[in-house]
Each structure stands twice: as C-alpha cells, then as structure tokens.
C-alpha cells in the first residue's frame, strides 16, 4: 500500500470515528439542546417550577387584550397552555403564527406567566397578494 493510500484510509477512518463520537454525544445531549418546549412536552411530566420557554402557535381567536396585558393560548395542535403577558409584543406576534414565551407556570392557576415573548415565523415567504389569494382558498393563515 502506498503512503498516500495509507493516509487516505487514516483520514477516512478518523472522520468515521469522529462522526460516531459526534452521534453518541448528540444522542446524550438530546432534549437538553432544545430551545423551547411544546405544550405536549409540558403535559408529559409534572409541571416544572423553574423558568422555561414554551413554544407553539398562538391559537386562533384566543388573544384577549386588557390594557398592556394580553392573554392567549399556545397550542401545538395536540395540547394547549394559557399564557398571560404584560408588555410590548413583537410585530410578528399574530394569531395562527409561531410564538415563544419565556416564563413560569403559576402553580395555583396553571397559567403560564411570560416574562418575554418572541415571535417565531415559518419558512414560507410570499407577496401579500399571493397570500391574500391563498387565504380565500383557506391554505394560508391570516396576514397583517
């Protein structure tokens, strides 16, 4: 075997071992690297007492405003969590769009008290006219 073939197999082998080590590391890391929990994740175990991030869709027709306080329901289409938040909302906070709330679950009421709200948008981009036409056919959620 020529020296360069030896080096080729050494590099291939080392990359394979590295990939295996990476896969093992990530299977252990698993859920810990997640940025937020969906309502279904929260309902699986006992209600967490520490501050967490809750993510999902703002349920349609669930937004209620009371001065600077807003109440809405976060859903992942399987489970829902009611959220209250006082403060300024990001521009893209809308019904039917993604949202991430940072805060704690109030153990007395089961309400999620958010300290911070981030808007999460999906991967579709289109002009408003196209979205308007698609909204009529019901294949896209409401725009601004």
């Amino acid at each position, binding site marked *: 075997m020529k020296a360069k073939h030896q080096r080729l197999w050494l*590099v291939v082998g080392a990359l394979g071992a590295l990939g295996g080590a990476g896969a093992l590391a990530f299977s252990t890391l698993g859920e810990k*690297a997640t940025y937020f929990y969906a309502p279904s994740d929260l309902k699986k175990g006992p209600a967490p007492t520490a501050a967490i991030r809750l993510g999902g869709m703002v349920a349609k027709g669930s937004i209620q405003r009371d001065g600077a306080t807003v109440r809405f329901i976060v859903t992942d289409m399987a489970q829902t969590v009611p959220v209250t938040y006082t403060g300024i909302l990001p*521009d893209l906070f809308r019904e039917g769009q993604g949202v991430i709330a940072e805060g704690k679950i109030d153990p007395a009421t089961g309400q999620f008290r958010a300290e911070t709200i981030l808007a*999460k948008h999906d991967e579709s981009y*289109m002009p408003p006219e196209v979205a308007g036409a698609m909204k009529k056919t019901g294949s896209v959620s409401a725009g*601004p």
Partner: protein
Amino acid sequence: MHRYANPLRFLKIARVATPIVALLGLALTAAGLWIGLFASPPDYQQGESVRIMYVHVPAAWLGAGGYLSLAIASATALIWRHPLATIAARAIAPAGAAFTAICLVSGALWGKPTWGTYWVWDARLTSMLVLLFLYLGYLALAASEAERGGEQRGAAILALVGVINLPIIKYSVEWWNTLHQGSSISVVNASSKIAPELLTPLLLSVAGFSFLFAAIVLMRMRAMLAQQRIDARSRRLAEALA
C-alpha cells in the same frame, strides 16, 4: 486533479479566470440585490424586512459551503501533500469567515424586527457562531504554523474535525426546537416555500455571492503563490550575496 495541481498551470488558468469570475459575481450580485431590494414585493408577514434575506441566506450558504471546501482542500493537502491544496485552504478560510460574519450580523439585524430579539442561544444560531470560531481557530493555527515554516498539518486536521459542525448547522432546525425557522429550500427535493417573485432575486444573489467567493479565493491564491516566489527569490539572492 494532479494536472491542475501544478502551480504554474494553475496560475496560467487563474490569470484568465479571475476577472471573468469576479465580473460575473459583481453582475449577478448587483442584479440579485437590485431586484431583491427595489423590484420585488414585500413578504405577507414580515413586510419589507424580508429583504435582509437576499444578503443573509447567500452569506449563510457560503459560510457553510466555504467550510466544506476548506475541509476538502485540507484533506487533499493531508493525503496527497499538494502544496496548492494548502494554499487553497488558506485562501478560502478568511473569505468563509467573512461570509459567516455577514450571516451572523445580518441575521441579528433581521431577528430584531421579526422575532423581537437580536440573539438567542438556539441550536441554529449557536452552531453558526461555532462555525465562525472554527474559521478563526483555523486562521490563527495556520498562520502560526506557516510562520514556523511547517506544512500546516495541525490546521488541516482542525479543519477536518470541524466538519462535524456542518450537519449540525443544517439539521439543527429539525433535530431541536429552535427560534430559527426550518429550511425554506430543499435542494434534494428541488422544492421551495418561497414564492417565485422572492426566489428569483435570492437565487441570483446566491449565484453572485458564490462567484464573488470564488474570485476572492482565486485572487488570494495568486497573491500567495506570488509571495512564495518573491520569498524564494530573495532567499536565493541573499545566499548569492553572502
């Protein structure tokens, strides 16, 4: 491949190719950004801020794609010991680092009006920041090894180890819940969730940024080869005078 690994033959081709590639890059980038910034419709959700995409997405693809080419050049340098491969790797690294930095900065500026924050430590944003650190680490190590007159094997190994970050960046939005949205474009399925009016300027600026990246790499490789010849000549001169 060995045919083109000859530095003299490479220089002959690169001398002709550099201006063509650079002009193509400038023309396509100008067309993509012109249509993207002025002659394309806003997004139905984000409005005008979607236009940051025409800089952010090409920069992100070249940051990651540049790292893949850095790793291929480093593997070639390690296995076949081509001096030109080492030069290619060192030429690619700063360009890739610059595009990664553009991606991070434009992403932060895009995040504020859409998500409501410049930065979060989610898997996509964090892995992209790690990519920038990998580039910077490679640059520092390669520079110090070159100063000592080595073959920069340590830097090449670092470049190869960092490859593990590329699938993490790509699949971070699928493996974990992230604030960053999922992929809009699937190259494998040749499908996209971006309307054609917005996709055309995006693809133009991706093509333009790619040619510009290639032009920067060609220019840097030519400059490094010229520097090597100057060094060799002044060494010979010094020996003759001694």
